[in-house]
């Protein structure tokens, strides 16, 4: 009479799936931009308003784009990691370019924030109304993208950077991209 235990067995399998499901966040959706060219943009620089940047500034170098805002609490936490990252990159002489995308922010507040916490970015794109962020599929701050030297999006992270992600995912990826 194994038949009568079939419902129990089915139920146990379902529970295992639920338990697995609980460890995942259904809101994490892979970006449709992966392995596609980065969306076009023309944005002013945060410090030098008259200077405009576009996709051209991305080509030639592997680039890390970090989306941040002065109103974002989590950005403070990942900021020190970014500063460390830039230092390591410079020390190693690797050609990684770190660009900031200042998202839906106030210029004065953003500059003040950087003065207080330090500036890891070589360039900061200023996107006060979030229109560029929209094209890039940004739906929360912070987010981080890695673009290769041909302007193709290779990686996207929603949420804050951690040391594990930087050393385990981002740096190996950057190295691979630079060698190719």
């Amino acid at each position, binding site marked *: 009479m194994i038949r009568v*235990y079939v*419902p*129990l067995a089915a*139920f146990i399998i*379902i529970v295992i*799936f*639920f338990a697995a499901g609980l460890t*995942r966040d*259904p809101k994490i959706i892979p970006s449709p931009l992966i392995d596609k060219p980065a969306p076009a943009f023309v944005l002013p620089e945060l410090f030098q308003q008259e200077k405009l940047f576009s996709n051209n500034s991305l080509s030639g170098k592997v680039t890390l784009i970090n989306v941040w805002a002065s109103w974002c609490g989590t950005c403070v936490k990942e900021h020190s990691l970014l500063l460390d990252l830039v230092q390591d990159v410079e020390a190693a002489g690797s050609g990684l370019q770190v660009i900031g995308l200042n998202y839906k922010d106030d210029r004065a507040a953003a500059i003040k924030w950087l003065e207080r916490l330090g500036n890891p970015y070589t360039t900061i794109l200023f996107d006060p109304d979030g229109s560029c962020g929209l094209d890039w599929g940004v739906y929360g701050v912070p987010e981080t993208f890695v673009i290769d030297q041909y302007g193709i999006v290779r990686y996207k992270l929603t949420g804050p950077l951690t040391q594990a992600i930087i050393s385990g995912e981002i740096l190996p990826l950057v190295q691979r991209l630079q060698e190719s």
Partner: protein
Amino acid sequence: MIIEIGHFAVVLALVICILQTIIPMIGAIQGRENWMAVARPAAQVQFVMISLGFITLMHAFLVNDFSVAYVAHNSNSALLWYYRLAAVWGAHEGSLLLWCLILSGWTICVSCFSKSLTLDFTARVLSVMGFISTGFLCLLLFTSNPFERLIPAAMDGRDLNPLLQDIGLIMHPPILYMGYVGFSVAFSFAVAALSANKLDSSWARWSRPWTLIAWGFLTLGIALGSWWAYYELGWGGWWFWDPVENASFMPWLAGTALIHSLIVTDKRGAFKSWTVLLAIAAFSLSLLGTFLVRSGVLTSVHSFAADPVRGVAILIFISLVAGISLLLYGMRAGQVRSYLQASFLSRDYALLANNIIILVAASVVFLGTLYPLFLDALNLGKVSVGPPYFNTMLVPLFLLLGVLTAIGPLLRWRHDHLQELVTRLRLPYQLITCGVILSVIIMLDISLWLVFGLSVAGWIVCSSICLLMDRVKHSSTLLAGLFTQPLSFYAMLLAHTGFALSITGVTLVTALDLENDLGMTPNVSKQIGDYEYIFRGVEEIQAQNYRALRGTFDVMHNGRHITRLHPEKRHYPVQNSVMTEAAIDAGLSRDIYISLGDPLEGDTWSVRIYYKPFIRFVWLGGVLMFLAGIIAACDRRYKLRQDNRARLKQLHVQEA
């Protein structure tokens, strides 16, 4: 101070629940009468304690006590008083308390209306209910306590989600929970019967009225939820196949199968273990619904703030409840033998077919709802399953179920003759199908689904009339014949007619509705279908806790003014959210639904105008099914009379 009293009362209720679980069960196993006798008073005290807790929380909302964290998060002093009361169950913690309250309400009802049951059986049932209650009170007190204080107290509350500031919130959750939680009674009866190793048909008879009432409330709750989503969300849809909706639809399907299979177990003594399994499934699916809504494993339009800790706690609880009962089922069901002695053309087999179809439908919904979760767990990517899947799969199933609903009740138990049945049915069915096809051809281009849907609905109604005439024709007068039929017979006719109405509504509104998104300039009229719409402009108004832009529309039909509608776009400052409030001119044969979009250039606004024919039938069917459930539960056969009780006692003496 008052809220602490409530807190304390609920803690006390938890202690009593634990006693109610353990002592009567041990008493029943060891045959100690005084231990079994603990069950009833425990259930009653437990109810009083949880009510006390609930009332103190209501009080905190009513007097704007923002030193209670839950109140501060979900209310505001500018909120109208009746929304403040309903806000008690407006978020996770309070709705869990409502769940506990309703569960203890069902428990006390069982303890009061179980005089005809043996003490042994009552003790087992109340013990199982106590176990469920214990689990929920633990969830409440340890993971989502609504009685916690906020120090320092907030100056004012963060306000109730504007979506919930509506009559729908006052009615929908309590009624839905009545249904969800009501299945715990059938579940407890089933588990009690399993534990006592008495899987005869008597437990089925006892649990039938409870199951019918619970099913009725669940039906009404779902219908209300659909109606609420329709007028509040502003999209004009009435069912979205959202995980949370599916979470209520699955127990409904299991419950529908259950009330039908209970008939067979009660009257024919067959399907015994199958019925037990359905009772377990119906309640487990109710719990699953809670898990899906509260844990955030699936994304949904109306999920509460998701919290993994709660998710884990609820999952552990479901595993305990369903796991233990299914294990018990495995141990006991193997010993039960019940054979269906009937020919294929019989009511017995029709009910079996009903169960199979409903079960397939439930599996379809289950798979569609959880498929994204399964895929994600297996690292196969993220997907979402949408309405196309559900519609493609379920529409044929439900039409099949409709055909069965038309034929099944006309069949006799055990055995029927095909020839007789065909002669009985041929004429009315032909008439209806011809009528439907004709009217559809005349009215518009032909749609096959429209013909199918309307024919099936017509068949059901027609077969109900046939059945009634069949039953009455042997009586001396029509009136006498009508009066001698039992209530449950009329309830069945009513429920099946309700089902037919819902099919009619769904068919017509899907096939014939008109949806238009357009830009409208003041005083320029637009003709859509048979109606003419004139936009009169937008003005600003101020209400107690929101500001709104209010549009004015005149609706004309053949040059005659029908109604003036005022859709609104509301801004709630406390939560800084904007809500679209549609304006609806409701009618039995059609709804006109206008909702305000965004301003375009100048005075022009984007506007949504929907014409929804017969949409009210969808919910009206639900209301009929609810009434049918209540009426069926009132049938005399469930009220065991004195002599019956004496006979039962005698039986037990003989058994001993």
